[in-house]
Protein backbone atom coordinates (compact mmCIF):
# COMPACT_ATOMS: atom_id res chain seq x y z
CA UNK A 1 0.00 0.00 0.00
CA UNK A 2 2.71 2.39 1.04
CA UNK A 3 4.65 1.49 -2.05
CA UNK A 4 1.63 2.31 -4.21
CA UNK A 5 1.09 5.61 -2.44
CA UNK A 6 4.70 6.51 -2.88
CA UNK A 7 4.52 5.75 -6.55
CA UNK A 8 1.32 7.74 -6.95
CA UNK A 9 2.77 10.78 -5.26
CA UNK A 10 5.86 10.34 -7.40
CA UNK A 11 3.70 10.42 -10.48
CA UNK A 12 1.93 13.53 -9.27
CA UNK A 13 5.25 15.25 -8.74
CA UNK A 14 6.26 14.26 -12.24
CA UNK A 15 3.13 15.89 -13.55
CA UNK A 16 3.97 19.23 -12.00
CA UNK A 17 6.41 20.41 -14.67
CA UNK A 18 3.83 19.61 -17.32
CA UNK A 19 1.20 21.59 -15.47
CA UNK A 20 3.60 24.47 -15.02
CA UNK A 21 4.32 24.35 -18.71
CA UNK A 22 0.62 24.51 -19.41
CA UNK A 23 0.17 27.50 -17.15
CA UNK A 24 2.94 29.35 -18.92
CA UNK A 25 1.80 28.48 -22.42
CA UNK A 26 -1.83 29.32 -21.69
CA UNK A 27 -0.90 32.63 -20.13
CA UNK A 28 1.05 33.77 -23.13
CA UNK A 29 -1.37 32.30 -25.60
CA UNK A 30 -4.29 34.20 -24.08
CA UNK A 31 -2.28 37.38 -24.09
CA UNK A 32 -1.68 36.81 -27.78
CA UNK A 33 -5.39 36.70 -28.49
CA UNK A 34 -6.59 39.61 -30.56
CA UNK A 35 -9.33 40.93 -28.29
CA UNK A 36 -8.87 43.53 -25.60
CA UNK A 37 -10.65 42.73 -22.34
CA UNK A 38 -10.38 46.36 -21.24
CA UNK A 39 -12.54 47.45 -24.16
CA UNK A 40 -15.02 44.70 -23.46
CA UNK A 41 -15.20 45.67 -19.81
CA UNK A 42 -15.53 49.36 -20.54
CA UNK A 43 -18.66 48.55 -22.45
CA UNK A 44 -20.31 50.18 -25.44
CA UNK A 45 -19.86 53.89 -26.00
CA UNK A 46 -16.75 54.05 -23.81
CA UNK A 47 -14.03 56.32 -25.07
CA UNK A 48 -10.27 55.86 -25.08
CA UNK A 49 -9.92 57.48 -21.68
CA UNK A 50 -12.29 55.24 -19.79
CA UNK A 51 -10.76 52.24 -21.51
CA UNK A 52 -7.30 53.25 -20.33
CA UNK A 53 -8.75 53.62 -16.84
CA UNK A 54 -10.15 50.13 -16.90
CA UNK A 55 -6.98 48.69 -18.31
CA UNK A 56 -5.17 50.13 -15.32
CA UNK A 57 -7.80 48.76 -12.94
CA UNK A 58 -7.46 45.28 -14.41
CA UNK A 59 -3.69 45.51 -14.19
CA UNK A 60 -3.33 44.95 -17.90
CA UNK A 61 -1.00 47.89 -18.42
CA UNK A 62 1.74 46.26 -16.39
CA UNK A 63 4.56 44.48 -18.20
CA UNK A 64 3.86 40.85 -19.02
CA UNK A 65 6.27 39.23 -16.54
CA UNK A 66 4.73 41.07 -13.60
CA UNK A 67 1.25 40.18 -14.83
CA UNK A 68 2.41 36.59 -14.86
CA UNK A 69 3.69 36.78 -11.31
CA UNK A 70 0.41 38.28 -10.15
CA UNK A 71 -1.41 35.47 -11.89
CA UNK A 72 0.72 32.88 -10.14
CA UNK A 73 0.13 34.57 -6.83
CA UNK A 74 -3.62 34.55 -7.33
CA UNK A 75 -3.50 30.92 -8.38
CA UNK A 76 -1.65 30.01 -5.21
CA UNK A 77 -4.40 31.60 -3.16
CA UNK A 78 -7.05 29.80 -5.11
CA UNK A 79 -8.24 32.89 -6.94
CA UNK A 80 -8.83 31.96 -10.52
CA UNK A 81 -10.09 35.33 -11.51
CA UNK A 82 -13.30 36.77 -12.83
CA UNK A 83 -14.88 35.94 -16.12
CA UNK A 84 -15.44 39.07 -18.12
CA UNK A 85 -18.39 37.68 -19.98
CA UNK A 86 -20.47 36.54 -17.05
CA UNK A 87 -18.99 38.74 -14.36
CA UNK A 88 -18.76 35.80 -11.99
CA UNK A 89 -15.72 34.12 -10.53
CA UNK A 90 -14.37 31.66 -13.02
CA UNK A 91 -14.32 28.88 -10.51
CA UNK A 92 -18.06 29.27 -10.05
CA UNK A 93 -18.59 28.87 -13.77
CA UNK A 94 -16.35 25.84 -13.72
CA UNK A 95 -18.33 24.31 -10.90
CA UNK A 96 -21.53 24.69 -12.83
CA UNK A 97 -20.33 23.69 -16.27
CA UNK A 98 -17.89 20.89 -15.63
CA UNK A 99 -20.53 18.44 -14.30
CA UNK A 100 -22.63 19.19 -17.37
CA UNK A 101 -19.79 18.20 -19.69
CA UNK A 102 -18.75 15.19 -17.66
CA UNK A 103 -22.31 13.90 -17.54
CA UNK A 104 -22.60 14.22 -21.31
CA UNK A 105 -19.22 12.59 -21.88
CA UNK A 106 -19.98 9.68 -19.58
CA UNK A 107 -23.29 9.03 -21.31
CA UNK A 108 -21.55 9.17 -24.67
CA UNK A 109 -19.00 6.68 -23.36
CA UNK A 110 -21.71 4.33 -22.11
CA UNK A 111 -23.40 4.46 -25.49
CA UNK A 112 -20.13 3.91 -27.34
CA UNK A 113 -19.13 0.99 -25.12
CA UNK A 114 -22.50 -0.69 -25.45
CA UNK A 115 -22.10 -0.76 -29.21
CA UNK A 116 -18.37 -0.92 -29.78
CA UNK A 117 -17.52 -3.79 -27.46
CA UNK A 118 -20.12 -6.24 -28.76
CA UNK A 119 -19.07 -5.30 -32.30
CA UNK A 120 -15.44 -5.81 -31.37
CA UNK A 121 -16.22 -9.20 -29.86
CA UNK A 122 -18.17 -10.14 -32.94
CA UNK A 123 -15.28 -9.21 -35.19
CA UNK A 124 -12.78 -11.02 -33.01
CA UNK A 125 -14.72 -14.27 -33.16
CA UNK A 126 -15.17 -14.07 -36.91
CA UNK A 127 -12.00 -12.49 -38.19
CA UNK A 128 -11.73 -11.66 -41.88
CA UNK A 129 -15.32 -12.52 -42.64
CA UNK A 130 -17.76 -10.10 -44.20
CA UNK A 131 -19.08 -9.37 -40.70
CA UNK A 132 -15.63 -8.29 -39.65
CA UNK A 133 -15.32 -6.02 -42.66
CA UNK A 134 -18.79 -4.62 -42.20
CA UNK A 135 -18.22 -3.69 -38.57
CA UNK A 136 -14.94 -2.07 -39.53
CA UNK A 137 -16.72 0.01 -42.15
CA UNK A 138 -19.48 1.04 -39.73
CA UNK A 139 -17.22 2.20 -36.96
CA UNK A 140 -14.86 3.95 -39.36
CA UNK A 141 -17.78 5.85 -40.81
CA UNK A 142 -18.61 7.07 -37.34
CA UNK A 143 -15.17 8.49 -36.86
CA UNK A 144 -15.09 10.12 -40.28
CA UNK A 145 -17.88 12.60 -39.80
CA UNK A 146 -17.49 15.98 -38.18
CA UNK A 147 -19.52 15.91 -34.96
CA UNK A 148 -21.36 19.14 -35.64
CA UNK A 149 -22.50 17.75 -38.97
CA UNK A 150 -23.98 14.60 -37.46
CA UNK A 151 -25.47 16.61 -34.63
CA UNK A 152 -27.27 19.02 -36.92
CA UNK A 153 -28.58 16.32 -39.19
CA UNK A 154 -29.82 14.33 -36.21
CA UNK A 155 -31.68 17.39 -34.96
CA UNK A 156 -33.11 17.92 -38.41
CA UNK A 157 -34.28 14.34 -38.83
CA UNK A 158 -35.27 13.29 -35.34
CA UNK A 159 -36.51 16.54 -33.89
CA UNK A 160 -37.65 18.66 -36.79
CA UNK A 161 -39.00 16.08 -39.23
CA UNK A 162 -40.00 13.17 -37.05
CA UNK A 163 -40.61 14.93 -33.76
CA UNK A 164 -39.40 12.00 -31.68
CA UNK A 165 -36.42 13.71 -30.10
CA UNK A 166 -36.93 16.37 -27.41
CA UNK A 167 -36.18 20.00 -28.25
CA UNK A 168 -32.42 20.67 -28.32
CA UNK A 169 -32.64 23.30 -25.63
CA UNK A 170 -29.89 22.06 -23.36
CA UNK A 171 -29.91 19.89 -20.28
CA UNK A 172 -33.52 20.22 -19.31
CA UNK A 173 -36.70 21.36 -20.93
CA UNK A 174 -37.87 24.64 -19.47
CA UNK A 175 -41.03 23.25 -17.94
CA UNK A 176 -38.90 21.39 -15.43
CA UNK A 177 -36.82 22.93 -12.72
CA UNK A 178 -33.34 21.54 -12.29
CA UNK A 179 -32.90 19.24 -9.29
CA UNK A 180 -31.30 20.64 -6.13
CA UNK A 181 -27.57 20.74 -6.57
CA UNK A 182 -25.65 17.87 -5.00
CA UNK A 183 -23.23 16.64 -7.61
CA UNK A 184 -24.26 18.75 -10.58
CA UNK A 185 -25.16 15.61 -12.50
CA UNK A 186 -28.87 15.96 -13.19
CA UNK A 187 -29.32 12.21 -13.48
CA UNK A 188 -27.87 11.59 -10.04
CA UNK A 189 -29.32 14.64 -8.35
CA UNK A 190 -32.83 13.96 -9.55
CA UNK A 191 -32.62 10.40 -8.23
CA UNK A 192 -31.31 11.62 -4.89
CA UNK A 193 -34.26 13.97 -4.84
CA UNK A 194 -36.66 11.20 -5.78
CA UNK A 195 -37.98 13.14 -8.75
CA UNK A 196 -38.56 10.59 -11.51
CA UNK A 197 -40.05 13.12 -13.92
CA UNK A 198 -36.94 15.24 -13.90
CA UNK A 199 -34.78 12.12 -14.16
CA UNK A 200 -36.48 11.00 -17.34
CA UNK A 201 -36.57 14.53 -18.72
CA UNK A 202 -32.82 14.90 -18.19
CA UNK A 203 -32.23 11.49 -19.71
CA UNK A 204 -34.20 12.32 -22.83
CA UNK A 205 -32.25 15.53 -23.33
CA UNK A 206 -29.01 13.52 -23.09
CA UNK A 207 -29.85 10.96 -25.74
CA UNK A 208 -29.20 12.82 -28.98
CA UNK A 209 -26.02 14.64 -27.95
CA UNK A 210 -24.58 11.47 -26.37
CA UNK A 211 -25.15 9.46 -29.51
CA UNK A 212 -23.62 12.19 -31.64
CA UNK A 213 -20.56 12.30 -29.44
CA UNK A 214 -20.35 8.55 -28.96
CA UNK A 215 -20.40 7.77 -32.68
CA UNK A 216 -17.08 9.48 -32.95
CA UNK A 217 -15.30 7.08 -30.64
CA UNK A 218 -16.81 3.76 -31.70
CA UNK A 219 -13.80 3.08 -33.87
CA UNK A 220 -10.96 3.09 -31.33
CA UNK A 221 -13.02 1.09 -28.84
CA UNK A 222 -14.15 -1.53 -31.32
CA UNK A 223 -10.71 -1.88 -32.83
CA UNK A 224 -8.99 -2.27 -29.50
CA UNK A 225 -11.55 -4.82 -28.37
CA UNK A 226 -11.00 -6.80 -31.53
CA UNK A 227 -7.22 -6.60 -31.38
CA UNK A 228 -7.02 -7.43 -27.73
CA UNK A 229 -9.46 -10.32 -28.00
CA UNK A 230 -7.65 -11.74 -31.00
CA UNK A 231 -4.43 -11.69 -29.09
CA UNK A 232 -5.93 -13.40 -26.07
CA UNK A 233 -7.88 -15.92 -28.13
CA UNK A 234 -4.70 -17.13 -29.77
CA UNK A 235 -2.93 -17.59 -26.46
CA UNK A 236 -2.04 -20.93 -24.94
CA UNK A 237 -4.39 -21.06 -22.02
CA UNK A 238 -7.40 -20.49 -24.25
CA UNK A 239 -6.29 -23.27 -26.48
CA UNK A 240 -6.03 -25.49 -23.46
CA UNK A 241 -9.51 -24.52 -22.33
CA UNK A 242 -10.90 -25.33 -25.75
CA UNK A 243 -9.06 -28.63 -25.81
CA UNK A 244 -10.57 -29.46 -22.45
CA UNK A 245 -14.01 -29.03 -23.95
CA UNK A 246 -15.20 -26.00 -22.02
CA UNK A 247 -18.32 -24.40 -23.58
CA UNK A 248 -17.48 -21.73 -26.11
CA UNK A 249 -19.49 -19.05 -24.41
CA UNK A 250 -17.77 -19.58 -21.13
CA UNK A 251 -14.37 -19.42 -22.75
CA UNK A 252 -15.24 -16.23 -24.52
CA UNK A 253 -16.83 -14.29 -21.70
CA UNK A 254 -15.30 -15.60 -18.56
CA UNK A 255 -11.74 -16.25 -19.61
CA UNK A 256 -10.91 -14.44 -22.80
CA UNK A 257 -12.77 -11.21 -22.29
CA UNK A 258 -11.59 -10.65 -18.78
CA UNK A 259 -8.04 -11.05 -19.82
CA UNK A 260 -8.50 -8.82 -22.81
CA UNK A 261 -10.00 -6.10 -20.64
CA UNK A 262 -6.83 -4.26 -19.80
CA UNK A 263 -6.03 -2.55 -23.09
CA UNK A 264 -9.72 -1.91 -23.56
CA UNK A 265 -9.80 -0.04 -20.27
CA UNK A 266 -6.84 2.05 -21.29
CA UNK A 267 -8.55 2.92 -24.53
CA UNK A 268 -11.68 3.86 -22.61
CA UNK A 269 -9.66 6.21 -20.48
CA UNK A 270 -8.00 7.77 -23.51
CA UNK A 271 -11.33 8.08 -25.24
CA UNK A 272 -12.89 9.72 -22.22
CA UNK A 273 -10.24 12.38 -21.96
CA UNK A 274 -10.33 12.93 -25.70
CA UNK A 275 -14.11 13.37 -25.61
CA UNK A 276 -13.96 15.78 -22.73
CA UNK A 277 -11.70 18.03 -24.71
CA UNK A 278 -13.55 17.78 -27.97
CA UNK A 279 -17.20 18.04 -27.03
CA UNK A 280 -16.92 21.73 -27.77
CA UNK A 281 -18.73 21.44 -31.08
CA UNK A 282 -21.49 19.15 -29.85
CA UNK A 283 -22.19 21.52 -26.99
CA UNK A 284 -22.57 24.39 -29.39
CA UNK A 285 -25.07 22.54 -31.57
CA UNK A 286 -27.20 21.25 -28.71
CA UNK A 287 -27.03 24.42 -26.57
CA UNK A 288 -25.38 22.32 -23.85
CA UNK A 289 -24.11 24.59 -21.05
CA UNK A 290 -20.88 22.72 -20.67
CA UNK A 291 -17.27 23.63 -20.32
CA UNK A 292 -16.60 23.36 -24.06
CA UNK A 293 -19.09 26.03 -25.09
CA UNK A 294 -17.81 28.15 -22.21
CA UNK A 295 -14.30 27.83 -23.61
CA UNK A 296 -15.31 28.90 -27.11
CA UNK A 297 -17.18 31.94 -25.85
CA UNK A 298 -14.29 32.85 -23.62
CA UNK A 299 -11.80 32.41 -26.44
CA UNK A 300 -13.78 34.57 -28.82
CA UNK A 301 -14.34 37.21 -26.16
CA UNK A 302 -10.66 37.15 -25.14
CA UNK A 303 -11.76 36.40 -21.61
CA UNK A 304 -8.29 35.62 -20.25
CA UNK A 305 -9.23 34.34 -16.83
CA UNK A 306 -11.85 32.00 -18.20
CA UNK A 307 -9.63 30.51 -20.89
CA UNK A 308 -6.72 30.02 -18.52
CA UNK A 309 -8.92 28.43 -15.93
CA UNK A 310 -10.53 26.12 -18.43
CA UNK A 311 -7.26 24.88 -19.82
CA UNK A 312 -5.76 24.44 -16.39
CA UNK A 313 -8.78 22.50 -15.18
CA UNK A 314 -8.69 20.20 -18.17
CA UNK A 315 -4.97 19.61 -17.81
CA UNK A 316 -5.26 18.69 -14.14
CA UNK A 317 -8.19 16.47 -14.98
CA UNK A 318 -6.12 14.65 -17.58
CA UNK A 319 -3.31 14.05 -15.15
CA UNK A 320 -5.67 12.56 -12.59
CA UNK A 321 -7.47 10.55 -15.22
CA UNK A 322 -4.27 8.98 -16.47
CA UNK A 323 -3.22 8.22 -12.97
CA UNK A 324 -6.56 6.62 -12.17
CA UNK A 325 -6.32 4.44 -15.23
CA UNK A 326 -2.92 3.25 -14.14
CA UNK A 327 -4.21 2.49 -10.68
CA UNK A 328 -7.19 0.58 -12.06
CA UNK A 329 -4.72 -1.32 -14.21
CA UNK A 330 -2.90 -2.60 -11.18
CA UNK A 331 -6.16 -3.54 -9.53
CA UNK A 332 -7.39 -5.51 -12.51
CA UNK A 333 -4.17 -7.27 -13.23
CA UNK A 334 -2.05 -8.06 -10.21
CA UNK A 335 0.84 -8.95 -12.45
CA UNK A 336 1.25 -5.36 -13.43
CA UNK A 337 2.99 -3.06 -11.05
CA UNK A 338 2.87 0.67 -11.20
CA UNK A 339 6.13 1.80 -12.66
CA UNK A 340 7.79 4.54 -10.67
Amino acid at each position, binding site marked *: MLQTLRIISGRLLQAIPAILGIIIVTFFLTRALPGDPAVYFAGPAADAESIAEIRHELGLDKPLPSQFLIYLQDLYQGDLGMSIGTGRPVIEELGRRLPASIELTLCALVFAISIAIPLGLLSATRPDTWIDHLTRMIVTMGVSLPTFFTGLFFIYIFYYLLGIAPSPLGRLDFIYLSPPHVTGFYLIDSLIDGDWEVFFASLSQLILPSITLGLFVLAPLARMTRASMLQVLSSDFIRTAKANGLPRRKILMTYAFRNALLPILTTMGMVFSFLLGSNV*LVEKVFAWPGIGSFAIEAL*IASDYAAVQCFVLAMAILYVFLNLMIDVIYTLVDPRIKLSG
Partner: protein
Amino acid sequence: MKNLKHIKYVLTENPITFGSVILFLLFILTAIFGPLLIPFDPLASDTENALNPPSALHWFGTDQLGRDVFSRVVVATRLDLFIALVAVILSFVVGSILGSLAGYYGGWTDRIVGRFLDTIMAFPLFVLAMAIVAALGNTIENIVYATAIINLPFYARVARAEVNVLRNSPFVEAALVSGNSHMKLLCFQIFPNAMPPMMVQLSLNMGWAILNAAGLSFIGLGVKPPDAEWGIMVAEGANYIISGEWWVALFPGAVLMLAVFCFNLLGDGLRDIFDPRKRS
Protein backbone atom coordinates in the same frame (compact mmCIF):
# COMPACT_ATOMS: atom_id res chain seq x y z
CA MET B 1 10.51 -7.48 -55.38
CA LYS B 2 9.52 -9.21 -52.20
CA ASN B 3 7.96 -6.01 -50.97
CA LEU B 4 5.94 -5.58 -54.13
CA LYS B 5 4.64 -9.10 -53.88
CA HIS B 6 3.68 -8.49 -50.29
CA ILE B 7 1.82 -5.33 -51.21
CA LYS B 8 -0.01 -7.08 -54.00
CA TYR B 9 -0.96 -9.84 -51.59
CA VAL B 10 -2.39 -7.45 -49.06
CA LEU B 11 -4.38 -5.60 -51.66
CA THR B 12 -5.98 -8.61 -53.22
CA GLU B 13 -6.55 -10.32 -49.89
CA ASN B 14 -8.47 -7.42 -48.49
CA PRO B 15 -11.06 -5.85 -50.80
CA ILE B 16 -11.66 -2.94 -48.51
CA THR B 17 -8.06 -1.88 -48.50
CA PHE B 18 -8.03 -2.20 -52.25
CA GLY B 19 -11.12 -0.04 -52.47
CA SER B 20 -9.62 2.61 -50.25
CA VAL B 21 -6.46 2.77 -52.34
CA ILE B 22 -8.55 3.33 -55.46
CA LEU B 23 -10.54 6.01 -53.66
CA PHE B 24 -7.36 7.66 -52.48
CA LEU B 25 -6.00 7.78 -56.01
CA LEU B 26 -9.30 9.25 -57.14
CA PHE B 27 -8.98 12.03 -54.58
CA ILE B 28 -5.42 12.77 -55.64
CA LEU B 29 -6.48 12.94 -59.28
CA THR B 30 -9.37 15.24 -58.37
CA ALA B 31 -7.05 17.48 -56.43
CA ILE B 32 -4.64 17.76 -59.33
CA PHE B 33 -6.95 17.86 -62.34
CA GLY B 34 -10.31 18.74 -60.83
CA PRO B 35 -10.08 22.52 -61.07
CA LEU B 36 -9.43 22.20 -64.81
CA LEU B 37 -12.53 20.14 -65.46
CA ILE B 38 -15.25 21.81 -63.42
CA PRO B 39 -18.31 23.20 -65.20
CA PHE B 40 -18.62 26.47 -63.25
CA ASP B 41 -16.36 29.04 -61.64
CA PRO B 42 -16.37 28.13 -57.95
CA LEU B 43 -16.20 31.78 -56.96
CA ALA B 44 -18.78 33.20 -59.35
CA SER B 45 -21.95 34.23 -57.60
CA ASP B 46 -25.31 34.13 -59.32
CA THR B 47 -27.80 35.53 -56.90
CA GLU B 48 -30.74 34.91 -59.18
CA ASN B 49 -30.13 31.20 -58.79
CA ALA B 50 -29.27 31.03 -55.11
CA LEU B 51 -30.18 27.92 -53.17
CA ASN B 52 -31.37 25.87 -56.12
CA PRO B 53 -31.82 22.15 -55.45
CA PRO B 54 -29.68 19.61 -57.34
CA SER B 55 -30.56 19.49 -61.01
CA ALA B 56 -29.12 18.44 -64.33
CA LEU B 57 -27.35 21.78 -64.60
CA HIS B 58 -26.09 21.96 -61.03
CA TRP B 59 -25.46 18.41 -59.90
CA PHE B 60 -25.06 19.36 -56.28
CA GLY B 61 -27.32 22.40 -56.41
CA THR B 62 -26.29 25.98 -55.65
CA ASP B 63 -25.41 27.68 -52.40
CA GLN B 64 -26.64 30.89 -50.80
CA LEU B 65 -24.76 33.07 -53.29
CA GLY B 66 -25.74 30.99 -56.30
CA ARG B 67 -22.35 29.31 -56.62
CA ASP B 68 -22.25 25.79 -58.01
CA VAL B 69 -21.76 23.41 -55.10
CA PHE B 70 -20.28 20.63 -57.25
CA SER B 71 -17.53 22.86 -58.61
CA ARG B 72 -16.74 24.13 -55.14
CA VAL B 73 -16.58 20.64 -53.69
CA VAL B 74 -14.16 19.55 -56.41
CA VAL B 75 -11.94 22.60 -56.02
CA ALA B 76 -11.99 22.19 -52.24
CA THR B 77 -10.33 18.80 -52.63
CA ARG B 78 -7.07 20.48 -53.48
CA LEU B 79 -7.14 22.79 -50.48
CA ASP B 80 -8.19 20.16 -47.99
CA LEU B 81 -5.67 17.59 -49.15
CA PHE B 82 -3.03 20.28 -49.11
CA ILE B 83 -3.81 21.28 -45.53
CA ALA B 84 -3.92 17.67 -44.40
CA LEU B 85 -0.75 16.63 -46.18
CA VAL B 86 1.40 19.59 -45.18
CA ALA B 87 0.22 19.56 -41.57
CA VAL B 88 0.85 15.86 -41.18
CA ILE B 89 4.21 15.90 -42.92
CA LEU B 90 5.28 18.82 -40.77
CA SER B 91 4.33 17.10 -37.54
CA PHE B 92 5.89 13.87 -38.78
CA VAL B 93 9.20 15.52 -39.59
CA VAL B 94 9.47 17.68 -36.50
CA GLY B 95 8.10 14.96 -34.25
CA SER B 96 10.43 12.33 -35.61
CA ILE B 97 13.47 14.53 -35.20
CA LEU B 98 12.58 15.42 -31.62
CA GLY B 99 11.65 11.88 -30.72
CA SER B 100 14.68 10.32 -32.34
CA LEU B 101 17.06 12.68 -30.62
CA ALA B 102 15.34 12.04 -27.31
CA GLY B 103 15.39 8.28 -27.81
CA TYR B 104 18.97 8.18 -28.98
CA TYR B 105 20.72 10.50 -26.57
CA GLY B 106 18.47 10.02 -23.55
CA GLY B 107 19.32 11.99 -20.44
CA TRP B 108 18.42 15.66 -20.40
CA THR B 109 17.41 15.72 -24.05
CA ASP B 110 14.91 13.03 -23.28
CA ARG B 111 13.61 14.78 -20.22
CA ILE B 112 13.14 18.16 -21.85
CA VAL B 113 11.48 16.73 -24.93
CA GLY B 114 9.32 14.59 -22.69
CA ARG B 115 8.04 17.54 -20.69
CA PHE B 116 7.44 19.53 -23.85
CA LEU B 117 5.35 16.71 -25.25
CA ASP B 118 3.45 16.27 -22.01
CA THR B 119 2.55 19.92 -22.09
CA ILE B 120 1.08 19.65 -25.55
CA MET B 121 -0.72 16.44 -24.77
CA ALA B 122 -2.32 17.79 -21.64
CA PHE B 123 -4.20 20.41 -23.64
CA PRO B 124 -7.60 19.48 -24.97
CA LEU B 125 -6.39 19.21 -28.53
CA PHE B 126 -9.14 21.00 -30.32
CA VAL B 127 -9.08 23.88 -27.89
CA LEU B 128 -5.34 24.22 -28.41
CA ALA B 129 -5.86 24.42 -32.14
CA MET B 130 -8.56 27.01 -31.60
CA ALA B 131 -6.35 29.06 -29.33
CA ILE B 132 -3.43 29.03 -31.74
CA VAL B 133 -5.54 30.09 -34.70
CA ALA B 134 -7.38 32.71 -32.65
CA ALA B 135 -4.11 34.16 -31.44
CA LEU B 136 -2.25 34.12 -34.74
CA GLY B 137 -5.09 34.80 -37.13
CA ASN B 138 -7.02 32.46 -39.36
CA THR B 139 -4.85 32.00 -42.39
CA ILE B 140 -4.23 28.69 -44.04
CA GLU B 141 -0.64 28.68 -42.77
CA ASN B 142 -1.78 29.04 -39.18
CA ILE B 143 -4.38 26.32 -39.52
CA VAL B 144 -1.64 24.06 -40.83
CA TYR B 145 0.73 24.99 -38.00
CA ALA B 146 -1.94 24.49 -35.35
CA THR B 147 -2.85 21.07 -36.75
CA ALA B 148 0.82 20.14 -36.99
CA ILE B 149 1.49 21.07 -33.38
CA ILE B 150 -1.34 19.07 -31.92
CA ASN B 151 -0.31 15.96 -33.87
CA LEU B 152 3.36 16.27 -32.97
CA PRO B 153 3.44 14.26 -29.76
CA PHE B 154 2.39 11.01 -31.31
CA TYR B 155 5.22 10.88 -33.82
CA ALA B 156 7.70 12.05 -31.24
CA ARG B 157 6.68 9.31 -28.83
CA VAL B 158 6.75 6.53 -31.36
CA ALA B 159 10.08 7.69 -32.75
CA ARG B 160 11.51 7.90 -29.28
CA ALA B 161 10.30 4.45 -28.29
CA GLU B 162 11.53 2.75 -31.44
CA VAL B 163 14.85 4.54 -31.54
CA ASN B 164 15.41 3.77 -27.89
CA VAL B 165 14.93 0.07 -28.44
CA LEU B 166 17.05 -0.10 -31.56
CA ARG B 167 19.83 1.91 -30.06
CA ASN B 168 20.76 -0.88 -27.73
CA SER B 169 20.68 -3.59 -30.34
CA PRO B 170 23.84 -5.44 -31.38
CA PHE B 171 24.04 -4.14 -34.91
CA VAL B 172 24.17 -0.59 -33.68
CA GLU B 173 26.91 -1.48 -31.24
CA ALA B 174 28.83 -3.07 -34.04
CA ALA B 175 28.37 -0.10 -36.33
CA LEU B 176 29.57 2.32 -33.67
CA VAL B 177 32.60 0.21 -33.00
CA SER B 178 33.49 0.18 -36.69
CA GLY B 179 33.63 3.97 -36.65
CA ASN B 180 30.25 5.20 -37.91
CA SER B 181 29.18 8.59 -36.60
CA HIS B 182 26.10 8.87 -34.37
CA MET B 183 24.21 11.10 -36.73
CA LYS B 184 24.80 8.95 -39.76
CA LEU B 185 23.71 5.92 -37.83
CA LEU B 186 20.59 7.62 -36.55
CA CYS B 187 19.50 8.88 -39.92
CA PHE B 188 20.26 5.97 -42.16
CA GLN B 189 20.13 2.86 -40.01
CA ILE B 190 17.97 3.38 -36.97
CA PHE B 191 15.31 5.76 -38.07
CA PRO B 192 14.16 3.86 -41.18
CA ASN B 193 13.40 0.94 -38.90
CA ALA B 194 11.30 3.13 -36.70
CA MET B 195 9.18 4.32 -39.59
CA PRO B 196 6.58 1.55 -40.08
CA PRO B 197 4.33 2.27 -37.11
CA MET B 198 4.45 5.95 -37.96
CA MET B 199 3.43 5.40 -41.58
CA VAL B 200 0.15 4.00 -40.43
CA GLN B 201 -0.54 6.96 -38.25
CA LEU B 202 0.23 9.34 -41.12
CA SER B 203 -2.85 8.25 -42.94
CA LEU B 204 -5.06 8.40 -39.87
CA ASN B 205 -3.75 11.83 -39.01
CA MET B 206 -4.61 13.16 -42.43
CA GLY B 207 -8.22 12.30 -41.82
CA TRP B 208 -8.10 13.92 -38.44
CA ALA B 209 -6.48 17.06 -39.89
CA ILE B 210 -9.37 17.53 -42.30
CA LEU B 211 -11.91 17.13 -39.50
CA ASN B 212 -9.96 19.59 -37.41
CA ALA B 213 -10.08 22.23 -40.13
CA ALA B 214 -13.81 21.63 -40.49
CA GLY B 215 -14.35 22.11 -36.78
CA LEU B 216 -12.38 25.35 -36.79
CA SER B 217 -14.50 26.62 -39.68
CA PHE B 218 -17.65 25.88 -37.73
CA ILE B 219 -16.52 28.23 -35.00
CA GLY B 220 -15.47 30.85 -37.51
CA LEU B 221 -11.73 30.29 -37.17
CA GLY B 222 -11.30 28.41 -40.39
CA VAL B 223 -10.37 29.26 -43.93
CA LYS B 224 -11.18 32.75 -45.21
CA PRO B 225 -14.04 33.21 -47.64
CA PRO B 226 -14.56 32.87 -50.52
CA ASP B 227 -12.07 29.98 -50.55
CA ALA B 228 -13.75 26.65 -51.04
CA GLU B 229 -12.95 24.17 -48.29
CA TRP B 230 -15.15 21.23 -47.31
CA GLY B 231 -15.32 22.21 -43.66
CA ILE B 232 -16.38 25.78 -44.20
CA MET B 233 -18.93 24.70 -46.77
CA VAL B 234 -20.46 22.35 -44.23
CA ALA B 235 -20.35 25.00 -41.53
CA GLU B 236 -22.09 27.57 -43.74
CA GLY B 237 -24.51 25.01 -45.10
CA ALA B 238 -25.46 23.99 -41.57
CA ASN B 239 -27.56 27.13 -41.34
CA TYR B 240 -29.69 26.00 -44.24
CA ILE B 241 -30.51 22.47 -43.13
CA ILE B 242 -33.57 23.39 -41.11
CA SER B 243 -35.02 25.54 -43.83
CA GLY B 244 -34.84 22.55 -46.13
CA GLU B 245 -31.84 23.40 -48.30
CA TRP B 246 -30.02 20.28 -47.23
CA TRP B 247 -27.77 20.00 -50.26
CA VAL B 248 -25.55 22.93 -49.30
CA ALA B 249 -24.21 21.00 -46.33
CA LEU B 250 -24.81 17.40 -47.31
CA PHE B 251 -22.61 17.13 -50.40
CA PRO B 252 -19.47 18.71 -48.96
CA GLY B 253 -20.12 16.76 -45.75
CA ALA B 254 -20.49 13.47 -47.58
CA VAL B 255 -17.32 14.04 -49.62
CA LEU B 256 -15.47 15.06 -46.46
CA MET B 257 -16.63 11.89 -44.77
CA LEU B 258 -15.58 9.85 -47.75
CA ALA B 259 -12.10 11.36 -47.71
CA VAL B 260 -11.57 10.80 -44.00
CA PHE B 261 -13.06 7.35 -44.31
CA CYS B 262 -10.69 6.58 -47.13
CA PHE B 263 -7.66 7.77 -45.13
CA ASN B 264 -8.67 5.72 -42.15
CA LEU B 265 -9.08 2.53 -44.14
CA LEU B 266 -5.87 3.29 -45.97
CA GLY B 267 -4.16 3.46 -42.61
CA ASP B 268 -5.34 -0.04 -41.88
CA GLY B 269 -4.03 -1.22 -45.22
CA LEU B 270 -0.66 0.41 -44.63
CA ARG B 271 -0.49 -1.32 -41.29
CA ASP B 272 -1.03 -4.64 -42.98
CA ILE B 273 1.71 -3.90 -45.47
CA PHE B 274 4.31 -2.61 -43.08
CA ASP B 275 3.55 -4.28 -39.82
CA PRO B 276 1.37 -7.35 -40.06
CA ARG B 277 2.00 -8.14 -36.41
CA LYS B 278 -0.03 -5.23 -35.26
CA ARG B 279 -3.11 -5.97 -37.32
CA SER B 280 -6.24 -4.80 -35.60
